[in-house]
């Protein structure tokens, strides 16, 4: 049996599938948090979720609206200070996977969450760095989830908030970045992975019904396509029903549909 699903749903499900069971995941709020909790509620029940506000091993029943909802603390194995989260757990190398969103991304999976336009006279002032630069620097690997548009997939970032693969292959090692950097970017249209040597993002999986032409049309550079391009498996009915239940519970609790 297959169910209908939306572009956002296959994005979330595909992101969730990236997370292996028994790994330790540092979760950003919004799409990453939704995908990570979907993973925990489906194939990865022992996934360890760490939120920058302090909870270690959070198991929220509804999605948090903020990065520090009480639900995260009461369901966690323990809650430490935010200072400790960043020093001992993230910088200390205890995080397998960092899970981030972005406002802009470039071909080497560098990220902007700071400003659109000039820094001193911005068109749009975005929230800023938060925990992202050090998650991108120190996590064992990084997954990025965002919707793919010409505004988000840009030739040149307005501001480099967090480094992915910098200027390409070898950049991270040369610059002493301890984590492995972005391993995949999951969008509403497909999945992009860095080329093993050049580190340029390459389309490796395309969601059913999406064309390469459509994806290239919303990518701000000439997107490379893998010679082994796959079609993303459709969400299973179990994945969709768990996701929808989670969203409904969350909407009922917060009085809104989740982000």
């Amino acid at each position, binding site marked *: 049996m297959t169910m209908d699903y939306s572009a956002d749903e296959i994005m979330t499900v595909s992101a969730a599938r990236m997370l292996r069971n028994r790994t330790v995941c540092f979760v950003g709020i919004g799409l990453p948090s939704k995908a990570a909790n979907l993973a925990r509620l489906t194939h990865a029940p022992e996934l360890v979720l760490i939120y920058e506000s302090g909870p270690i091993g959070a198991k929220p029943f509804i999605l948090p609206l903020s990065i520090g909802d*009480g639900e995260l603390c009461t369901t966690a194995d323990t809650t430490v200070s935010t200072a400790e989260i960043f020093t001992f757990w993230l910088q200390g190398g205890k995080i397998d996977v960092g899970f981030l969103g972005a406002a802009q991304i470039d071909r080497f999976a560098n990220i902007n969450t700071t400003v659109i336009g000039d820094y001193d006279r911005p068109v749009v*002032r975005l929230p800023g760095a938060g925990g992202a630069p050090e998650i991108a620097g120190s996590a064992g690997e990084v997954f990025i989830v965002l919707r793919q548009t010409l505004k988000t997939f840009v030739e040149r970032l307005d501001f480099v908030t*967090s480094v992915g693969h910098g200027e390409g292959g070898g950049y991270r090692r040369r*610059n002493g970045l301890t984590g492995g950097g972005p391993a995949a970017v999951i969008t509403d249209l497909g999945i992009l992975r860095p080329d093993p040597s050049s580190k340029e993002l390459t389309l490796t999986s395309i969601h059913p019904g999406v064309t390469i032409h459509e994806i290239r049309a919303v990518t701000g550079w000439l997107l490379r396509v893998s010679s082994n391009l796959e079609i993303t498996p459709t969400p299973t009915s179990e994945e969709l029903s768990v996701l929808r239940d989670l969203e409904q519970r969350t909407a009922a609790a917060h*009085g809104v549909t989740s982000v």
Partner: protein
Amino acid sequence: MARILPLADAVAELIHDGDQVACEGFTHLIPFAAGHEIIRQQKKKLTLVRMTPDLIYDQMIGMGVADKLVFSWGGNPGVGSLHRLRDAIERQWPSSLMVEELSHAGIVQGYTAGAAGLPFGILRGFTGTDLPKVNARIKSITCPFTGESLAAIPAIRPDVAVVHAQKADRVGNVLVWGIIGVQKEAVLASKRAIVTVEEIVDRLDPPPNACVLPSWVVSAVCLAPGGAYPSYAQGYYDRDNRFYQLWDQISRSREEFLRWMKLNVLAESGRLNFMEKFSNIGRMA
């Protein structure tokens, strides 16, 4: 030793125009009551420091108390932009706002160095990012053992830390629990500290190894039930996520913002009326 003071007196006495003020709280225990009192007293030219400036900083900035912001993430968590913060940065309303920007890990090191009596803190950070280009206070330092280059951040030492906590005892020892953020670091880094609390009790009876601020590192303890609302106080009331969403509407226009502030913050009993609309706080206020 801390004095137990009315909040208005503590703000009047301990926060001066031009001070560097850190109202901390990581989503949990945000000191809204104290922030509203700072607005009511029309403090000026403050440098506001905080990892996660949210609604209360949006309100303080929109009401013109600050001329500088030191921060790492300024948004309405899970909702979107802080429109008053953006209006100040993008269009200098009500006045221009200097910005000094770090990452969370950078501010953590700044507070930690301040609390630890060190002039700077070190971290693995900022490599390859544009943040050092726009913040001259991010420098680098070389490890004398390995030759590695690391980021160095100067200590943050606010004039005043302002935090909210669950309870204090009658001599002013404070117990904080749940998501404790960087409140302890901010208090220990600051010259003075104001702590608002949900209740003042005869005995704290903290669990082992709890986050306790001893009376002698706190300047003033102020009873402020519901003082974190619309943020939350674990064990007392939940975060009012609906208000955080509503704020997105209220704060989009300057006029609607000013109207709301007059009614709910500046007016006599404004904050009380605001809180009383919400049953879970109303019971405690």
